[in-house]
């Protein structure tokens, strides 16, 4: 790897990290697992002047349950999520990220802050209605995950804020399904769909569908959700609802997928994810 020249510092505290960011402005980048930023630097598509490595900062690692919420440290690697089955959908999706090496290094916070619309976790967290905690020079604030990604690789975090924690509702009683489509097992999602379903007395009390890589940001398939809420979840109902999965999306085309094909995939994957979430798979 031959990146453009850069400085590197590994900080020991959150305050130090925030100070580095405040003083350095937009030329300073936080380094978490490095599995998105470093490849960009290798291609010289990103050339930060200074990297601030936060791996030594205490308090950013691990998963704790607090009443109905999981508190997940921003530096928690995907591998840890993958082997925490109590996280349900998040655990399942984390297990599909790239390969084991990447999952050992890549972090949930890095994935959110990098805001790549092809990443697995942002749409999953969107469906789960998680919140994130960020800390900056002025203190701490919470942001609903729906308000984090604003565009391709762009978030509502200020340049001097550090993402510290993800708060994930435990979502007890929900069934879930995750359908990721890619060419090779380790590729980013061409499209992915996740579903969370809560059924009581035979009808769908709550349903959330998240879509990955169907726009510059993760999306909820709200038309699908609307069509299913309050309904009996059988195959026909789900199939009919899933036909609306691509409504309101703006999928970016690439070498291997036109927007039309991606829309088709979104419908198929949404149906499959819902069937799994509703326990209808054979």
């Amino acid at each position, binding site marked *: 790897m031959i990146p453009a020249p850069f400085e590197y510092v590994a900080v020991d505290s959150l305050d130090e990290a925030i100070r580095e960011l405040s003083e350095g402005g937009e030329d300073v980048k936080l380094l*978490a697992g490095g599995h*998105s930023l470093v490849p*960009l630097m290798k291609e010289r598509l990103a050339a930060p002047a200074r990297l601030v490595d936060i791996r030594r900062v205490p308090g950013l690692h691990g998963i704790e349950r607090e009443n109905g919420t999981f508190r997940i440290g921003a530096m928690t690697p995907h591998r840890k999520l993958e082997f925490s089955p109590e996280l349900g959908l998040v655990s399942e999706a984390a297990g599909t990220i790239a390969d084991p090496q990447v999952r050992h290094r890549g972090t949930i916070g890095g994935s959110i802050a990098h805001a*790549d619309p*092809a990443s697995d976790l942002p749409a999953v967290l969107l469906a789960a209605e998680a919140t994130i905690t960020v800390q900056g020079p002025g203190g701490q604030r919470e942001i609903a995950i729906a308000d984090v990604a604003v565009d391709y690789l762009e978030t509502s975090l200020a340049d001097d804020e550090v993402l510290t924690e993800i708060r994930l509702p435990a979502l007890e009683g929900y069934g879930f399904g995750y359908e990721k489509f890619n060419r090779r*097992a380790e590729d980013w999602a061409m499209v992915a769909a996740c579903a969370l379903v809560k059924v009581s007395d035979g009808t769908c009390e709550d349903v959330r569908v998240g879509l990955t890589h169907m726009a510059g940001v993760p999306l909820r398939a709200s038309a699908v959700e609307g069509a299913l809420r309050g309904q009996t979840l059988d195959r026909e109902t789900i199939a009919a609802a899933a036909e609306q999965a691509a409504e309101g999306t703006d999928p970016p085309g690439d070498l291997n997928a036109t927007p039309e094909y991606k829309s088709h995939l979104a419908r198929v994957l949404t149906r499959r994810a819902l069937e799994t979430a509703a326990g209808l798979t054979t």
Partner: protein
Amino acid sequence: MSTVESEATTQNGHVGRSLRRKEDPRLITGQGIYVDDIQLPGMLHAAIVRSPEAHATITSIDVSAALARDDVRAVMTGEDLAEDLEAPLAMLWAPPGTEIKAPEHWPIARGKVGYVGQALAIVIGDDRYGVVDAAEEVIVELEPLPVVVDVEKALEDEIVVHEEIGTNKAFEWSLPGGDVDAGFEEADVVVERRIVNHRISGSPIEPRGTVADYRAGELTLWTSTQIPHIVRLVLSMQTGMPEDKIRIVTPEVGGGFGAKLQQYHEETTLAVCAKKLGRPIKWVETRSEHMTTSHHGRDQVDYVKIGAKRDGTITAIHSKIIQDLGAYHMLLTPLIPALGSFVMSGCYKIPNVRTDIVGVFTNKMSTDAIRGAGRPEATHMIETIVDALAVELGMDPLELRRKNFIPKEDFPAEIPIGIVYDSGDYEGSLDKLLGMIDLDGFRSEQAELRERGIYRGVGFSTYVEICGLAPSRAVGPSGLGIQGGFWESAIVRVHPSGSATVYTGASPHGQGHETGFAQIVADRIGIDPQQVDIVHGDTGAGPMGMGTYGSRSLAVGGVSAAQAAEKVADKARRIVAHQLEAAPEDIELAEGSFRVKGSPDQGMTLAEVAGAAYVPENLPDGMEPGLEETNFYDPENFVWPFGAHACFVEVDVETGKVQVYRYVAVDDCGPAINPMMIEGQVHGGIAHSIGQALYEQVVYDDDGQLATGNFVTYALPTANEIPEFETDRTETPSPTNELGVKGVGEAGTIAATPAIVGAVVDALRPLGIDFLNMPLTPMRVWQSIQEAQERGEGPRATEQGRDLPAEARDSAGSGPTIPPGQEPGPAHGGGAA
């Protein structure tokens, strides 16, 4: 068929065993030395400034900012090096009997560029990072010219790649046998297809790299290549440095796949600059550079037409190959489609065969030998068209094959184009394959699963390769016209204490020569393979040699090593006979001893013989001391490996995704030297074919910009995408050489693509699909299903491939599926935050 018995299998027993590879311990413990591991005192580093335009006139190159940096020692452009070069980059084959148009191709561009990535300048400085930074400071002004990337558009000559030539058509060449027109007249059924065999990259795990060191009037060049001796010869012609003052060393080479069967401009430029600066220089290719400027392979549009009688007897096959050459000829660029033409009739007895080749320039990287080189294209054509013919005739595709196989008793079999297939048993390998797969069971399972919406299919390939390149008289200047001979050399040197070193002109890059050659030699001189070291890839050690490619190392280099070893054994027998007062013909080699027949306790070990040879107190009169022999072996014919493959796939018809869930291969490369290494070669080759058939494609957009510059966009398959392989062999010895061996390095890559594509077509036939072009990406498969559904019940076989809907016939070449600039960012790299 010949009854040549491999002497090797009957002697001393090392040949034929799955010996563990001698090279592996050092490779898997990180002790191998590759080019990038080489550090020399005072060594500088180089980076290449490359063209961002596919076709442009060079207006100016301003190197002043780069040169002003403290860490930069020199920046050289094409003009700066003009004085130092006596010849441009080499093209070693021109089609005989016809004119070939060849633009001058200098190591660094002069005046204009013809493809993205063409070198514009070299920056040399103190460290690897600094030179890359400095390269960004070289200011190049280019005046863009119109670009042509589609090979059939290029044939129209509306946009011309080389204005001085005036046409994109570089050459036309035909290889006829029999009378195809008469053959088609005779036919009751004619089937045609337009097959696009798309562009792929070699993609070895180790990219290329070169270190040049010029001191005391001699150049030493470490380079990651398959052909060190040819690099030396060509480099000598380009630079004017005498051949004896150039030493080429290939340390470990981490894969080649044809991409290193080349003499590249960086080798020339580094050699010249090292001499000018008086300092060693290193350049190591990045992965993106490999994708951009290491030569590509394939990129043909093939019109293939087959004629047959109602009973299935094939009367004629004609193919027109439109070969995308890229912007320049490189070492063997025009030869590649010609190599395919030799096996255009496959393993079938077809009386009338004709291949017409047209080579066409485009504004892309050159094509040349990659992963099978010409023969995979031919196999894909013939096997695909035979499958289509079977459908048209309403015949079982395997029965159609059997009906037309060259029968076992016909070998050696001269085919209509005038060459002789050495030996074969095509029914035998197909029978063995069918014994492994339970085809009837599959067919009933397939029908049952279709009822449930699960689409599975099976595809077959019965193939023959032309390997063991090459009999020099056939391919040399007065034959096919290659400017060289294609023999191989070996020295077997027995040391005074009885161990041996073998110097071979073959140049392995992963194949396992150090093990296989040691087995061959050890058996012949009565020692253990562990006592036989193989030295290769150093022009300063050992005789001139031709390198490793075209599945030639064993069938040519291995035979040379065997013959050199036999000469050593002969001398040993004479020494032993002299010392034991017996006749040389009464000395046999058995149980590690050269002993008198009938008196097993009377004998000498090789160590004892070597002792006698190097302390020559008691040698036969007139015998030279020492125990070392040299051999040069030029084969009398090619060798013709063959086999039968079956691929099983499941297609998700909702998404178009194809999964290969079973792959069974029966290959025949003659008697096995090391069965385990054969399996490894077959596995790698099939994996590459799965890559080409389903995943990999080099894509240029309409502006000639490369859209697949890394392993994110260029989808090399990983272990996840590759099934377990089931392999077996038949052994039909070649009469061409005394080992009976045929070579196996390219078997998988030559055989497998039609089996994979055929399996997908078989799976989707109920949906109206009867033809698909590679690569079978999920979107292409899905779109083909949609189109087949839209046109209703699909026709069983179209008369004319070009009438197929656009998507079914289009492949790369015509650019990506979306306008440039809309692809997602490079962050999508098999990685995550």
